[in-house]
């Protein structure tokens, strides 16, 4: 339930602003985890190991998912209904694929002897990618609602639906950006 109040001082929709603030909170969460990583690494007794190759594939998958969702958004606004619907579905499927690949990557790490309960350098990789994956699940839920709307509601362009779509779109792009941050961070550190 959202409010229907007219707001007088706005250049940005309140819901969108809420989302930005929520994303700021998530940034602080990962900022804390990565700072903890740096602090802990500098203390020594730190196991160095190769990251799974699948992480690179995953980066491509999540970027493709973001592109697909963006195509869906443009399709929605330009009345290209097929692009709109298929873009959403493809984006959702790629999101699921990302989670599956992530699971395989964890298995690969485990098989190489990098266990969750071993040296903290390995634990950090599991924990950070795991918490990212949890956020991705929340993004998939939002995408699920968007897909439901795309197929169940009669197609029409309303300001309300544009705003709603933008919320999902920005959050999904944000999660892709967050992954790229983690990917670069883990590779560089």
């Amino acid at each position, binding site marked *: 339930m959202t409010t229907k109040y007219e707001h007088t001082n706005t250049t940005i929709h309140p819901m969108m602003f809420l989302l930005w603030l929520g994303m700021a909170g998530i940034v602080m969460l990962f900022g*804390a*985890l990565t700072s903890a990583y740096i602090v802990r690494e500098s203390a020594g007794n730190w196991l160095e190991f190769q990251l799974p190759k699948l992480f690179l594939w995953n980066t491509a998958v999540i970027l493709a998912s973001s592109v697909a969702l963006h195509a869906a958004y443009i399709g929605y606004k330009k009345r290209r209904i097929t692009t709109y619907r298929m873009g959403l579905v493809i984006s959702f499927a790629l999101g699921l694929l990302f989670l599956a690949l992530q699971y395989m990557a964890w298995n690969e790490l485990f098989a190489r002897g990098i266990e969750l309960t071993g040296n903290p350098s390995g634990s950090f990789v599991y924990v950070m990618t795991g918490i990212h994956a949890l956020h991705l699940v929340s993004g998939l839920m939002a995408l699920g609602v968007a897909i439901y709307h795309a197929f169940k509601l009669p197609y029409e362009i309303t300001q309300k639906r544009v705003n709603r779509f933008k919320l999902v779109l920005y959050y999904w792009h944000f999660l892709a950006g967050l992954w790229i941050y983690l990917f670069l961070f883990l590779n560089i550190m």
Partner: protein
Amino acid sequence: MAEIKEVTYQPDSIIEELGYDDHFHDHGHDGDKYQVGFVSKYIFSTDHKIIAKQYLITGIIWAIIAAGMSVIFRLQLGFPEESMAWLRPLLGKWIVVNSEGFGTLAPEFYYALVTIHGTILVFFVLTAGLSGTFSNFLIPLQIGARDMASPFLNMLSYWFFFLAGLVMFLSLFVSTGPFSGGWVAYPPLSALPQAMSGSGVGMDLWLMSLVFFVVSVLLGGINYITTILNLRTKGMTMLRLPLTIWSFLVTAIIGLLSFPVLVAGFFLLIFDRTIGTSFYLSDIFIGGEALNHTGGSPVLYQHLFWFLGHPEVYIIILPAMGIVSEVMSTHARKPIFGYKAMIVSIASIGFLSFLVWAHHMFVSGMNPFIANFFILFTLIIAIPSAIKVFNWLTTLYQGDLHLRVPMLFAIGFVSFFISGGLTGLFLGNAPIDIQVHDTYFVVGHFHIVMGVAAFFGMWAGVYHWFPKMYGRFMNETMGKIHFWLTLISAYMVFWPMQYLGIAGVPRRYYSFDSFQTFSMFDGMNKVITVFAIIAFFTQLIFIFNFFYSIFYGRKVKSKNPWKATTLEWSTDIHPGHGNWEGKLPTVHRWPYDYNIDQVEYKPQYVPVSEGEEVIH
């Protein structure tokens, strides 16, 4: 002084003429879900005014529980030789009664009481009960909004808080006892379920409760920020916001940036506890056996914890400061002194709060050169704090003081903030802190500056806005008794503690009978306990006054009983859904036009007359 012209205003007609029509009432709210049914109106309400009252009353209940705990552990500290068998009906097996009928408090439970007392007061009472209540109640009313940006998230915020409280409450009844490793929950005590009895299920529930609590704070906070920045009425520029709103805004921003860091720390702690990772644990022997954990660092937890922990004390004190500024200006009938300086100091306290966390860790083995950085920023915080104190005192100076109960509490706040803040300068210096660390000096310091002071700010707010919340006044006589007894007993509890601390008496000790060094302080400990009990029973006067006045207090007859300038006093005595009956008020001036140009006061919705100089 020149003659002051008394004035009365008709907000209805002014707003009807100049207000802003947002067509809010066009579609009619009579069949609205807001209005039908007890459950949606009073329980799962999305109305910010009801949610505020829910926060307040939940906070009061938690405050009673936490204060009751402090009385029990104060009895142990003040009168360890007295039997506590009479508490057995309440505490059950935690009172160990020997064959002669002599009852002693179980040491494990003493630690649990201290831990839960701190957790409840810091998080449930002074965070949720203070900023949850007043941010919810005042933000929409004072900025001229119909409700929060997302009333639904706002409702969710309260219910996550409720859930957090429920889980914490359940943890009190676990057979191994609630968590007892101190409210800061340092590993390894908090990370190893076998470390002590309270570290088992009690700690699991404690962590679960606090994660729910953080969700609640974040949902509330993003809503407060969005509402303040997006939903102000026409004319309500940032420099016309009441200082309450400024303080709630900065509080919410601090919370949004620091609570996720605490959660990150808690996640790692949960993994250490449940999965067996070693983020915080290394080389530990329990019962002669080495544990598997290697490579962790407990200091890492302290960094993550205090990155929230220090901003948290500003999350507690800033709303109280905002409330005090507003109450003081209204009851001194004077513009607040240095309005812009107040805003700048609120903002700079908020900023600096992120740069000082390690002053809690001077004895953790951190690099003493790094400590210098934190000493510097800690001492710099004294500057904006002193600016605020100066401005309050100058607001009082030559004011037309109306010493009603909210004003007394506002002045009391300043008194406590000064005396508690000064000891902060001692603690902020590593050389002195190393001497008094973990002594009663610290306990006395933070109880005065962020415990009692924040409570006084809260009471100032409750007494001041009670007429707006319930359409009735609280009893003035009971209020004054409440004020004086609390003021005296709070000082008598926490001042002696600072002497104890300088003498080196350590905090968190169950008893001091193992060595003679501290036996000379028995008398002082008895005095502290007696005043703690007096303070506790004084609060029953407040609680009676509060609940009695909701139903039987003197009725509010006019919309603006304190002759205040802010927008909430232009709504109906019992504001309904959407706050304003018709149009929204528009704002034409800053909020502190008291006794300017020989006019008693000018509310914010009153237009600027010809030739009048506007302040903002």
